[in-house]
């Protein structure tokens, strides 16, 4: 048993975090809101230079051969910075699915391109009626009744839909499944894709919650009312302390889920759902209490707080809303009486 990240994992996360804090500023995010396609090719190129797209690609195909556990702290940082790019869809979700069948030349070729930062893949799943960043994708990984399809961008019709979060570029995708586009009929691949999507959301929600905590502790330390910093009032302190408690107890739940997913644990779906609910609860509280301790300024467009609150509110419905994930946990625990023995904590993988 070793419930810690390795030095390599921590160092890489630190490098990425430093990069994001320097490059992905609220100013950049706001300037991209005003652009037609909402994305920065320069930023995408720099993220590729850091090696991020190569992370889930097997070493034999030019990648780093890493996986879900490595992604977790990185995705948290993506949330912390409210990264305006669906890089996780290409590099974690799609690459993760493609890496399951490297014997397939289509997968191998595409993985090589992903590792080189030369391919972008949008991911569509019935849990999400719309597909993020479909306008920037070379291929789309789309789930149909008969399996997972890999569809060239030239074969889809896109219709943009506005999100509460101006950084999110969402599209209704019209397409026809063909025998040639089908990648796999194996429902387990699609199921793992879904769980990865949900875990990626959970990780970002935790990072976003942390960002709101940081912004709020800073602001309440500076803003004065009644002759003192508002952070000296217990009511203000307690609101933020409550969020800190929720965030702290979401983190290990996410880590178990990532580990289970990476190791093909049959209970991974349950653990992921637990993570998604815990992260969603923490993030909802972070947004609610974050705006409250800011007062009226928190309700403005000008204040950067809105960037992070809106990402939370938008992501809270993505890859299965909390109600769906809670149902998966309750089905396991209550209906199947699972997870009731202390030895079950880490399930079959241990």
């Amino acid at each position, binding site marked *: 048993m070793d419930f810690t990240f390795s030095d390599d994992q921590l160092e890489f996360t630190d490098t990425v975090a430093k990069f994001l804090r320097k490059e992905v500023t609220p100013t950049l995010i706001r300037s991209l809101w005003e652009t037609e396609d909402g994305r920065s090719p320069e930023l995408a190129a720099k993220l590729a230079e850091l090696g991020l797209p190569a992370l889930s690609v097997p070493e034999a195909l030019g990648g780093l051969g890493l996986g879900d556990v490595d992604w977790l702290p990185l995705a948290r940082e993506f949330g912390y910075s409210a990264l305006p790019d669906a890089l996780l869809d290409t590099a974690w979700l799609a690459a993760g699915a493609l890496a399951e069948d490297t014997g397939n030349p289509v997968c191998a070729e595409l993985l090589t391109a992903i590792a080189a930062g030369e391919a972008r893949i949008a991911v569509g799943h019935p849990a999400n009626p719309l597909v993020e960043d479909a306008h920037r994708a070379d291929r789309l990984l789309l789930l149909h009744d008969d399996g997972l399809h890999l569809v060239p961008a030239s074969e889809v019709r896109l219709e943009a839909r506005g999100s509460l979060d101006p950084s999110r570029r969402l599209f209704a995708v019209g397409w026809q499944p063909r025998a040639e586009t089908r990648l796999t009929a194996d429902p387990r691949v699609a199921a793992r894709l879904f769980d990865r999507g949900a875990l990626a959301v959970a990780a970002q929600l935790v990072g976003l919650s942390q960002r709101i905590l940081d912004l709020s502790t800073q602001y309440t330390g500076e803003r004065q009312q009644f002759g003192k910093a508002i952070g000296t009032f217990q009511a*203000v302190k307690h609101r933020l302390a409550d969020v800190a408690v929720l965030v702290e107890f979401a983190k290990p739940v996410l880590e178990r889920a990532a580990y289970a997913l990476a190791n093909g644990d049959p209970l991974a779906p349950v653990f992921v759902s637990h993570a998604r609910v815990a992260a969603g609860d923490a993030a909802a509280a972070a947004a609610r209490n974050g705006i409250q301790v800011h007062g009226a300024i928190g309700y*403005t467009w000008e204040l950067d707080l809105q960037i992070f609150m809106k990402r939370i509110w938008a992501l809270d419905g993505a890859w299965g809303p909390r109600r769906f994930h809670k149902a998966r946990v309750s089905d396991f625990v209550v209906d199947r009486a699972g997870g009731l023995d202390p030895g079950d904590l880490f399930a079959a993988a241990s």
Partner: protein
Amino acid sequence: MRLHFTEAQRAFRAEVRAWLEANVPAEPLEDFDTEAGFTQHRLWERTLSDGGWGMVTWPKAYGGRGCDLIEWLIFEEEYWRAGAPARVNQNGLFLLGPTLMEYGTEEQKRRFLPAMASGEEVWAQGWSEPGAGSDMAAIRCTAVRDGDHYVINGQKTWSTRARWADWLFGLFRSDPASSRHRGLTFLLVPLRSPGVTVRPIRQLNGLPGFAEIFFDDVRVPVDNRLADEGAGWQVAMATAGFERGLMLRSPARFQQTARRLVQLYNERRAEADMDPAIRDAVVRAWMGAEAYTLSTYATASRLIKGGHIGAEASLTKVFWSELDQRMHETAMAILGAEAELLPDGGGDESRSWLEGFLFAQAGPIYAGTNEIQRNIIAERLLGMPRA
């Protein structure tokens, strides 16, 4: 105790309902925080007041209908049920109006109330300042007496609808040597006066729903003062009582939200029932809206018998704002992945769950934050020691 509507009250309800059915625009208006929407809403106020419905509780002489508070609640219920446009002049009608009724001179009432009821003059509220939010007694914006005028200098902020409003009612420091609650005066200021600069502030939805206002030697006649010089704080506390309770946020609004929530739940029951907490929250929403309504009828009955609203308005404010937040969170939970989608062709908070969700975040902040309300409840109603 006699808990049923009288024959006359039922007839009144039927009359309101019939009029609204015949007059409420079939197409929703644009958001009143857009220029076009503001104009549309102002015109709607005109239509309302031509029908005699501008502000039903006021005497007829001031553009009202002479109704009592029970009839006001009935009117509001029908108004929300009919999906009628939001009241663009709500700060005037619901906050300044009752304050004028209590503190205004006969001349002031005749000058201001009819034009308010008809939407001809739309009002903004000017209390908050950059340094005076929760700590409203820290107001610094000055109004210095100069003959038969006050000369205003300083800044107000977060003033709702000030972007296109005509007038502002506000609290100003008339005695520069004073501090805290003393030396404040309640003034009525035309926003088109020389020296006034209004800078719009965009809210979470991107629209300029409030504004900051700069005063540079703005001259206001002494006749525009409400109550005595230096009595502003006391007047403002009366206004706050209306803001926190039955005027600005009458229960009808929340009953309507609860009804819409029940409907949303029923339409999407298969998804919603994945989480039994959602059904529970829907039921609690209805019970909460019902409780707020009952409490307001009780308050109205007490006021009709000569009672006053005091610190208990703080209980009301906490109750409706947190109820509203929970109801909208529940709606978002039901909507799931669709919750984040911007409404096609706009839609204000009474139609779009997303707009309503955003606005519900402001509820525990405006009209005095809920932390401040809880302090008031604990200290003034429960008699707990002051911090």
